[in-house]
């Protein structure tokens, strides 16, 4: 019986052009500069939290997606990497109430 090998060669990722990297670099500069100047403005803490987190996540997406080629990898690999990171955000959020109770115990209600 003939043996069919299913072993596929390790796929060369379809790498983007060098121009794309420079465009991403420009976007990263733009987002960082925006964040820097937003910081100089007198914004409320809530506004800061929303804007800065949004900018940070956009930058993270650009770096992971293009520089780290995640956009060009197999979708299952993307799931394996992104799912724990979502849980990580949950971890950070989960300990915040603890900090708040510490604050309350320090300053009194």
């Amino acid at each position, binding site marked *: 019986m003939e043996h069919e090998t299913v072993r596929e060669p*390790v796929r060369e990722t379809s790498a983007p052009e060098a121009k794309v990297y420079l465009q991403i670099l420009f976007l990263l500069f733009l987002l960082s500069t925006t964040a820097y100047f937003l910081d100089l403005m007198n914004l409320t803490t809530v506004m800061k939290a929303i804007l800065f987190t949004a900018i940070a996540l956009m930058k993270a997406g650009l770096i992971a997606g293009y520089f780290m080629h995640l956009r060009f990898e197999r979708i299952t690999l993307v799931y394996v990497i992104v799912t724990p*990171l979502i849980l990580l955000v949950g971890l950070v959020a989960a300990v915040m109430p603890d*900090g708040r109770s510490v604050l309350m115990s320090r300053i009194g209600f």
Partner: protein
Amino acid sequence: MGSEDVMRTAWGGGQSPFAVSWGKLMMWLFILSDAFTFGGLLAGYGALRVGSPTWPDASKVFALHVAGREFPLLLIAIMTFTLICSSGTMALAVHSGYHKERQKTVLYLVATILLGLTFLSCQAYEWTKLIREGVRLWHTPFGPPQFGACFFTITGFHGSHVLSGVIYLGVIASRVARGVYDRRGSYEGVEIAGLYWHFVDLVWVFIFTFFYLF
């Protein structure tokens, strides 16, 4: 399912899981575990900061005096741009590696290393400045001791990653220069090192946002 069918599944050993090489997959798994280390540090920082009635104003603490004027967060802005630039040159190094252009790859790797060293120098300056002002791992003259603890732990952990990255890239650059990857027929080693370097930049995005901007 017969044993041959098992071999055909992604984890059966007959093929590469997720269609990436083992080196790349292992680097991704390392990056995930490292992300959790940094996530733990940031979570701890968040809890400590929320629990502190006062916190020093980062834009004043990290201001830079140039020609008698105070520029808030200038040093941190320079560090951020340096690291983003180094990610750009790293991406170009990986790109040159794809096309097996040995000289260009070495050139871009060296540029990345130099930018990494610039970042480390800025950090050394920043640490020196704060230590001279009396900030310690257990003490902050102008705020709660948690500030010093968080500052040195988080930036120190990140800085040691940058330092490791510089050494790592130095080894890779020397291998490229010696033609190791040409003989192997694949520049994947450069790409894997690139994953690590971009991750270090990625972590800085969050440290910059949550430690310095807030």
